[in-house]
């Protein structure tokens, strides 16, 4: 090898070295940027909100003054948010899981109908959340609620108004794609050998799905539920027309009552407050509580999933 070639190769290696190092640096920088932004947001919220959050703030009601930093409480909003997420989960998980079971276990994978259904689900995930709010108002409140009132109550107003159940139903439709996609992935990850083994023993398809496939897919299904809960706790637009209230003196007594909601309260405080500067601590306090609540809801689901995984792992030996 001549000296010239040797030098050229060294130069090339150095260039490559420099390139790879700078790419490495760029990826690290991008990550740092994200972490920095998150830290900035969290820091800002905690810095401005921590002083407002007290036991009285968290368990207190709204009756003594919603915009008074000394007297305002947000318990009704916490209650409403938890109730909404709870009802939403009850609605979305069964429907989403059953849809995913149909798509992976029953539908023909190649058929155009299956492809159309898949496309519809993906499109559903891309619809802006305010559209879901309008859909909820038109479909659940006016059509379903109105229908119930006409049929069972002779037109008297019981269901055809914004209510906790309609908000939960709307939120369930919004989070449906998340649950379906996560469940589908979980089901597809179950090896076919388990299905064949079960069917070869004379099990029906239903028995196979119920006793062999679903237990295996459970952690993945719960991941879907966790994502849905995270999304559902934070969205505001879908519940604005379907159940959330600006102010209520009482907690909702039934699923047909309206409710107050942390996210909607943040919207109220930042747009409807008589004095935005003076009520800012309440705003920050509410946001902080919303973040902590979302975190706790997620944590619960993660712990449940970890429990199931541990159980599965002992079964896996």
């Amino acid at each position, binding site marked *: 090898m001549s000296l010239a070639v040797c030098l050229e190769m060294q130069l090339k290696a150095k260039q490559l070295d420099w390139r790879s190092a700078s790419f490495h640096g760029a990826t690290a920088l991008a990550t740092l940027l994200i972490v920095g932004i998150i830290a900035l947001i969290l820091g800002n919220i905690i810095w401005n909100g921590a002083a407002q959050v007290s036991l009285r703030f968290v368990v207190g009601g709204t009756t003594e003054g919603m915009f008074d930093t000394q007297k305002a409480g947000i318990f009704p909003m916490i209650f409403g948010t938890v109730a909404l997420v709870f009802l939403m989960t009850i609605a979305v998980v069964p429907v989403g899981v059953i849809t995913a079971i149909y798509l992976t276990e029953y539908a*023909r*994978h*190649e058929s155009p109908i299956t492809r159309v259904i898949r496309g519809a689900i993906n499109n559903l995930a891309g619809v802006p959340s305010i559209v879901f709010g309008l859909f909820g108002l038109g479909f659940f409140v006016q059509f379903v609620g109105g229908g119930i009132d006409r049929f069972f109550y002779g037109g008297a107003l019981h269901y055809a108004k914004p209510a906790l159940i309609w908000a939960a139903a709307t939120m369930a439709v919004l989070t449906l794609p998340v649950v379906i996609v996560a469940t589908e992935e979980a089901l597809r990850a179950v*090896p076919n*050998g*388990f*299905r*064949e*083994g*079960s*069917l*070869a*023993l*004379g*099990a*029906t398809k239903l*028995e196979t799905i119920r*006793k*062999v496939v679903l237990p*295996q897919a459970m952690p993945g299904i719960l991941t879907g539920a966790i994502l849905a809960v995270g999304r559902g706790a934070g969205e505001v637009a879908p519940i604005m027309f379907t159940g959330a209230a600006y102010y209520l003196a009482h907690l909702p007594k039934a699923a047909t009552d309206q409710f107050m909601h942390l996210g909607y309260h943040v919207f109220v405080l930042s747009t409807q407050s008589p004095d935005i500067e003076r009520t800012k601590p309440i705003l920050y306090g509410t946001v902080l509580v919303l973040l902590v609540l979302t975190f706790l809801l997620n944590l619960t689901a993660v712990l449940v999933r970890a429990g199931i995984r541990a159980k*599965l792992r*002992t*079964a*896996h*030996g």
Partner: protein
Amino acid sequence: MDNTVFELTKLNFWYGPSQALYDVDVTIRRNQNTALIGPSGCGKSTLLRCLNRMNDLIERTRVQGSIMLHGQDVYAPEVDVIELRKRVGMVFQKSNPFPKSIADNIAYGLRIQGVTAKGELSDRIEASLRKAALWDEVKDRLQESAMALSGGQQQRLCIARAIAVEPEVLLMDEPCSALDPVATAKIEELIQDLKKEYTIVIVTHNMQQAARVSDYTAFFYLGKLVEFDATTKIFTNPANKQTEDYVTGRFG
């Protein structure tokens, strides 16, 4: 009635547009081991999976011709596939115990058949594990996970699981291809024993195995049945040149 269990007549099979079996005629006799041999892609596994209609699970497949099980066409519309699979058990190439305990793996099929009494369950779990020559190795850890067993033990557990529901026929799809020679020898011995109670159809890549465990051998090539005869005949004095070349290892 003669000792015919399965009678296959002019069986053709398609995966979508491509044909996998051409006019296959085979007779499976009671309490005899029948081996299906041939190079990869010759249709032997396809044939096996027709016998308990496992191929129903694959989209866009088509069957023509008849498979009679004691005179009843298994592809007739009135046939209950679930019942058929209870009568015709199957052991797969890749051992597939469920991620449950050893006892629950065997109880699974029994519970599906409606056996729920604790005493009967444990009796039948023990009986099938004994038949599968696994009892002595696992009797002290029936509640432990089946996934912790070795490959050979897992495969014997799958055999125990299949015979627990008392099928008449046992289909085996290359049951030893993922096992070491010691585990293979154990399974082969087991297959010989099981012959007394069951009719066994075994697909194998291993010619020596076919020679050792089977009474009849069917040789397939490119979806056609080339030769079907007593195993001793196939391996010592085959009628067909292709069969001879294959069993002597000249191609395949």
